[in-house]
């Protein structure tokens, strides 16, 4: 996830050019419109007060003042009297000091029972007019004609099953079909489509663009607008895993209907409804160390979009969709909780708390909504913990950093096996010379990679989780010179010097991974097969800023983004084995993002079948590829022939013009300067080459 600063940086370079992309946010603006002050916003009307005469007026007013006394100072209070009856009219105006007080008065006073006959109805003065002007007659809403929506997953039906990517270059956003080494086909392109950057939803259905007014989502075969979410100066977004909801964030707070300043909003993608907004003050957003980088996503979604949780001091607040109310109406109190993470496959929360007094540090797993704690693990001398879930939720790896002495620290892994009874925990020590930089789980697998520093050296380790039954067996045959046995249940597969690497990127299908040195590094990329534990290939993309897999794990793109490096921007397309397919220099290249694919609909059995019959399929694909290549070759050939003939024709014409002026030219020179030179006397060049044949030294007496 890109940091906030750079996104601001991105935003800066756009000119205010809104007319090119007219997204009509007016209806949304209408819906969330904040009324201009009328001057009466601090006034409330209390209805259903007893009708009293002049003599009881003061008593009643005092009673009412008492009801509202906690809210704040009442500026004025007025009870209109009916001059005909001498009685009060049954309602009272109260003016408060502030709008907030008036708001509170409505909340507090509305429904207040003075006695059985008098239940107060409190409204804002401004609202009364609105309510009275409402037409009482029922008007049947006009039936909106049904408009068929475009198929949002149409790109998956490409006859050649190609993948798409979106590229941002200057102010132009384009979507291309990947054609391997051939030129990609343009699917759609627009200028000034986004004011900042663009982003795909997690399953690839929507393309999100950023605008001053908010977020717009696009999709379908014609890239029409699907929905938009008005959030002024939005900077960050986060989709829920199943694309039902979207979270938006802006540094600049917006005013809610209740007059509060909020920065974060959660929306329903299909209806476009704003589900809930949150204030989140800037200090919390800036993070504990006062860094400008905010911890995003701030709200973490459960795997099925059912819950969304957020860390607050001393608690984890879990909200239930779509109502967005707190689960069981209260947050989960966890004293001093530092960090939490959802299981990617179950309603299980993991979190950790540091040591305090006699209580050890603790990593806990809690099931929701029951709030049953599945497992806790006590840890001592802990400085920091980090939680890494394996993508299918089978394992939770916790790196625990401990103080060894005053200066040195050591790290060990606590690996929770979620699929086994009582959730056993494997403990594994990491060689104390290693300073762990990061952990990378293999998607859909039980391997993980570790990147660590040994002094100034960079080390990469691959590990494999061994099934619970296996360690015992492995223990039995200890004779072999295996590199494993680091800990029961975790096997070290390989450890090697990973010079020039600062990132490991697994293929979305597992087994293969990239070791890349990006941004601050030189741009070296290694292509690894972790099954065979060999490096299949390597390459370099100088100053490369980003490296990504396509969603099928067949291709890799490395790119240099103008946001970070201003020279030689563009991208290289590689195969997963490290073979370079195409290199494109793109001026002002900013971003290339592969369109994600939803998970396959084939059952495991069907997938197995496909693998088994791969040869037959691949024959067919090879033929298609060959036909494609041939067509492209023919196209290129025809273009070249055309250019060649055009040029030859031009040359002849130009040369004829030159020849035509031969006389004039001869006149200028006094001779024909183009006459063949063989009439000149033959020149012979003599070259002296000196060579020392022998050298002897004699002393002459």
């Amino acid at each position, binding site marked *: 996830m890109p940091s906030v600063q750079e996104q601001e940086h991105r935003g800066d370079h756009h000119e205010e050019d809104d007319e090119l992309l007219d997204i009509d946010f007016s209806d949304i603006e209408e819906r969330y419109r904040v009324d201009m002050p009328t001057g009466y916003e601090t006034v409330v009307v209390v209805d259903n007060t007893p009708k009293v005469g002049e003599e009881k007026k003061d008593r009643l007013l005092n009673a009412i003042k008492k009801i509202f006394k906690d809210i704040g100072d009442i500026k004025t209070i007025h009870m209109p009297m009916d001059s005909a009856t001498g009685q009060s009219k049954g309602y009272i105006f109260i003016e408060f000091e502030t709008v907030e007080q008036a708001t509170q008065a409505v909340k507090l006073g509305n429904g207040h029972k003075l006695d059985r006959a008098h239940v107060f109805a409190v409204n804002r003065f401004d609202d009364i007019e609105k309510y009275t002007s409402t037409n009482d007659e029922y008007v049947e809403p006009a039936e909106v004609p049904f408009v068929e929506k475009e198929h949002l997953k149409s790109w998956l039906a490409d006859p050649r099953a190609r993948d798409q990517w979106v590229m941002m270059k200057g102010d132009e956003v384009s979507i291309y079909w990947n054609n391997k080494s051939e030129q990609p086909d343009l699917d759609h392109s627009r200028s000034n489509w986004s004011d900042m950057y663009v982003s795909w939803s997690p399953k690839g259905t929507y393309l999100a663009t950023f605008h001053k007014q908010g977020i717009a989502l696009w999709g379908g075969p014609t890239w029409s607008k699907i929905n938009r979410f008005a959030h002024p100066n939005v900077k960050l977004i986060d989709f829920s895993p199943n694309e039902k909801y979207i979270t938006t964030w802006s540094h600049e707070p917006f005013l809610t209907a209740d007059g509060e300043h909020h920065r974060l909003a959660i929306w329903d993608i299909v209806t476009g409804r704003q589900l809930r907004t949150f204030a989140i003050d800037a200090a919390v957003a800036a993070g504990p160390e006062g860094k400008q980088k905010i911890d995003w996503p701030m709200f973490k979604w459960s795997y099925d979009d059912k819950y969304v949780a957020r860390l607050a001091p001393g608690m984890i607040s879990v909200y239930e969709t779509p109502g967005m109310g707190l689960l069981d109406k209260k947050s989960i109190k966890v004293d001093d909780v530092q960090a939490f993470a959802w299981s990617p496959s179950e309603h299980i929360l993991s979190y950790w708390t540091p040591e305090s007094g006699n209580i050890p540090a603790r990593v806990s797993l809690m099931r929701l909504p029951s709030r049953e704690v599945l497992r806790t693990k006590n840890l001592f001398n802990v400085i920091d913990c980090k939680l890494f879930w394996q993508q299918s939720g089978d394992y939770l790896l916790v790196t625990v950093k401990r103080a060894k002495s005053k200066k040195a620290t050591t790290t060990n892994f606590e690996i929770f096996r979620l699929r086994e009874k009582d959730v056993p925990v494997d403990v594994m020590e990491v060689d104390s010379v290693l300073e762990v930089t990061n952990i990378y789980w293999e998607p859909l697998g039980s391997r993980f990679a570790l990147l660590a520093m040994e002094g100034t050296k960079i080390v990469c380790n691959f590990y494999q989780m061994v099934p619970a039954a296996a360690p015992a067996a492995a223990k039995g045959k200890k004779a072999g010179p295996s590199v494993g046995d680091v800990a029961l249940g975790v096997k070290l597969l390989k450890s090697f010097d990973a010079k020039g690497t600062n990132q490991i990127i697994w293929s979305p299908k597992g087994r293969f991974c990239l070791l890349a040195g990006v941004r601050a590094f030189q741009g070296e990329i290694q292509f690894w097969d972790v099954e065979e534990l060999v490096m299949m290939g390597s390459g370099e993309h100088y100053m490369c800023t980003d490296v990504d897999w396509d969603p099928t794990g067949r291709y890799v793109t490395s790119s240099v983004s103008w946001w970070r490096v201003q020279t030689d921007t563009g991208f290289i397309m590689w195969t997963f084995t490290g073979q370079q397919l195409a290199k494109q220099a793109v001026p002002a290249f900013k971003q290339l993002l592969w369109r994600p694919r939803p998970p396959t609909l084939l059952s495991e059995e069907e997938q197995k079948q496909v693998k088994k019959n791969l040869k037959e399929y691949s024959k067919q694909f090879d033929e298609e590829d060959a036909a494609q290549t041939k067509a492209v070759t023919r196209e290129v050939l025809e273009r070249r022939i055309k250019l*060649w003939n055009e040029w030859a024709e031009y040359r002849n014409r130009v040369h004829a013009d030159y020849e035509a002026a031969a006389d004039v030219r001869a006149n200028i020179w006094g001779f024909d*300067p183009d006459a063949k030179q063989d009439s000149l006397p033959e020149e012979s060049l003599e070259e002296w080459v000196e060579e020392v044949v022998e050298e002897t030294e004699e002393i002459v007496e």
Partner: protein
Amino acid sequence: MRPILLHGHTRSLTKVKYNRDGDLLFTVSKDAKPNVWFAHNGERLGSYDGHNGAVWDLDVSYDSKRLLTASADNTCRLWGVESGKELFRWNTRTAVRQVAFAQGDRMALYVTDATMGQPSTIWVVAIEEDLENQSDEFERKIIINGPKATVASWGDLNKTIYTGHEDGTITIWDAETGEKIKSVKSHDSVISDMQWAPDYGYFITASKDHTAKIFDAKTLRVMKTYTTQRPVNSAALSPIRPHIALGGGQEAMEVTQIGGAKQGKFETRFFHLPFEEEIGRVKGHFGPINTLAFAPDGRSFASGAEDGFVRIHYFDDDYFEFNYEEESLTA
């Protein structure tokens, strides 16, 4: 083949040029000392001593007897190629940027810079066979209003003068009246080089806007565009093959220590002329290439760079064997 390295200049090269026969290579640099070399082995024949400032440009007469140099010491000088002696000198108020013999070698032009309140100016002077009659009076003076001229040369039959400017425009002037005939802006930045096709039908320009373009001489229509990722300082047309050569690279001051030659891309790049496709690169310099020239027989080329070196490369046999199939296919 191994390139021939010419060490002789102490500062960055500004121009390299072959004589008509192709046996001599003339080079000028910012070190004030023009040199002449045997093109076939890189042996230095001699130098032309006298300038007191950077030498920006040179031209050599058809018969290889006379040499013109343009210098920042506010002089344009005429030299005896063989004797190495200064034959004549035009004193100017500002630095001389460009110099060129007209066809017939009886006239020449030089361009003075726009500095110290002086406008950028083209001066046309007569060159006398007999030096006794040589005068320092100018025949014609064309004042350039607007962006200064960075390159200048004669059109066919001395009827026109072509200039390339700081802002990327190209202008044709009537050489006899000094009137502006045509002006187009097809480049986005400084034009750093302009070289003619042998039959004056078109010319190639190099520009800091990272491109080189071929222009039709009459209409100034862009015929071809060659795009690179670095400023192009020089562009040359092969006299025998449908190829062009481009030289350039990152500005020396922008090259970082770490990136070095790799990031700077100090290569001579060859493109197929009609197809606009890159066909090869020659590495070797460790500074931007400032000037390129094909030998008149097209069998070798010379490059001069910011690093103070001149390199002469003779093409290998396979260069001459290399052909696009399409070149022989005619529809």
